[in-house]
């Protein structure tokens, strides 16, 4: 599980920021690699890593993409003390990182299926690892539909991919919405769940994967149910505060499941078995 050369799984290895991309006014994607080059460890789509800006703190983030043998990408939204400090950093700065943690998306089980990805805000970061994985193994997956929304045009992450790259992929449709009309925006306006219902992607041989703010997830799940998706066809990721990453420190439990270890990815059938704390 742990690939650093130190003994304790709680000790990070060192990585260096090789690039920073400003996605929005409060989201930056950090490209990190080992100082001598290469990734600190291999991650599967949906897995997590604990990133530390050592004098300040550690935080658990979803790895939004791994470019094999080259770098990891972590998209980080500025929401608190630690992420605020991270956003001040520049290329070349070294960070600590440990992982990978969590189960990741069921990329194998989804082979041969049509994929419906539904994201909101920074929730596209974890989904993106799965979306890009599908494009990389394009022949393994059927039609890909991506529905993504955020509060405003400025808050849309990964715009280059959303508007340029992904729509050009084979057998792929990308639908983007923002909450309220804006002068510069001639696309769809409205909330993600309603848009999903409007698009009404057939549940037949389809897996829906959703990630976003808790309130969006809640309504998306309702929409998918109305559209005829079974609980096994719906996958989401959960968020909790995490410290250790190995299911020991206690805090990220929902029922007897630890999100850092047994999650963060669950299908809706599994979620319904858990106490309603998510």
């Amino acid at each position: 599980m742990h690939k650093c050369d130190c003994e304790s799984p709680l000790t990070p290895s060192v990585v260096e920021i090789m690039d920073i991309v400003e996605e929005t006014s409060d989201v930056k994607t950090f490209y990190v690699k080992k100082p001598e080059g290469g990734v600190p460890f291999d991650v599967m789509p949906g897995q997590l890593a604990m990133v530390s800006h050592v004098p300040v703190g550690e935080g658990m983030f979803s790895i939004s993409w791994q470019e094999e043998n080259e770098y990891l990408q972590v998209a980080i939204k500025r929401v608190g003390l630690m992420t605020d400090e991270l956003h001040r950093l520049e290329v070349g700065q070294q960070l600590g990182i440990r992982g990978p943690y969590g189960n990741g998306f069921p990329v194998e089980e989804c082979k041969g299926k049509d994929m419906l990805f539904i994201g909101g805000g920074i929730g596209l970061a974890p989904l993106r690892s799965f979306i890009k994985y599908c494009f990389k193994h394009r022949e393994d997956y059927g039609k890909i539909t991506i529905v993504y929304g955020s509060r405003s045009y400025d808050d849309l992450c990964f715009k280059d991919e959303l508007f340029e790259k992904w729509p050009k992929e084979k057998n792929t449709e990308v639908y983007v919405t923002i909450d309220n009309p804006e002068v510069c925006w001639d696309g769809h306006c409205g909330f993600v769940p309603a848009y999903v219902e409007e698009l009404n992607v057939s549940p037949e041989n389809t897996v829906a994967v959703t990630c976003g703010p808790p309130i969006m997830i809640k309504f998306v799940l309702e929409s998918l149910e109305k559209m005829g998706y079974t609980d096994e066809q719906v996958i989401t990721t959960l968020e909790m505060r995490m410290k250790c990453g190995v299911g020991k420190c206690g805090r990220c439990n929902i029922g007897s499941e630890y999100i850092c270890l047994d999650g963060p990815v669950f299908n809706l059938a599994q979620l319904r078995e858990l106490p309603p704390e998510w």
Partner: protein
Amino acid sequence: MVRMKVLKTSKLEAAFNKLVGFGDLYVPMLRGSQSGFYSWKTYNEDYDDLMLDILNVYLPPKNFVLPQTEKLYSFKQEGVAIDIEEVKQKIEPKILFGIRACDVKGIDYLDEVFLTRGYDDIAYKERRDSLAIIASACYNPGTNCFCESMGVNPTEIESADVILREYGPEGYVWEVKTPKGEEVTKLIADLLEDEEVKLPELKSFLRQVEYEGVAEKLKDMFEHPIWDKASEPCQNCGICTYLCPTCYCFDIQVKSWGDEGYRFRCWDSCMYREYTQMAGGHNPREASKERFRNRFLHKLQFFPERYGPSLCTGCGRCVVVCPVGINITTIIQDIKEAE
């Protein structure tokens, strides 16, 4: 009457002075107003009271395997470069003398967490392996003891290396259970005597509760009104988690000065809001009731689902120290009776 190896009370201090040959020896003492396991090296007869007959010391011995704070690694930042160095723990052999069945069981449960299911906590394992347990059987349970109700046998202590059985004021039967127990016993072999003794009968428990079926029943009680009533007086002070021999939740924190410092692990408590407070403000257990419910469900349902037994050994400390009188046995009882 059976012939057994015994250690006479009169030879206890002589035995302590020899047992230190194995490692630092910790015995139950009252120091100031707090009883706990303190090093025999630091015993001061003007200040400390040896308390071998005390049932439970106030401070549980979980710190012997999971210290209250423990450095993980130190770091130094120079310009944009960082240097991370793991802190190697200096772990010496220790003996816990006179520990009771409930606290030994507490260590068993911590072993489950830190040494099983594909995860070995290296420092924990070293501390555990270098610890010798000389446990003391209980024949006369205290007024707040309910270990038997939680499936703990107060006289047959599985993970002990040696079991002491007080047969009267004059001495203890010395029963060796493991190779490590043999090793420890060699140090005091000349102080042990053969004697015909009659062991006391185990007295009945004053506090009892029926735990069977509770974990199963709780699966459907997450939203039950019982949690409103039970959690209402709770002040979220966290003393129950601090003194619980099985509460193991920890935090990882940083201490830094300028560009250097270290990261350490320290005990945490699920009673505190910060425990689950996320960046950005969302907290899945914002209300006191939610934290209270999670603590009891962890003890009585979640831990059993993951590891088997309940995460309560019936030591009774939380019952004694809770400032508002919350009592886990009453809660178990209420769960049993709830509709």
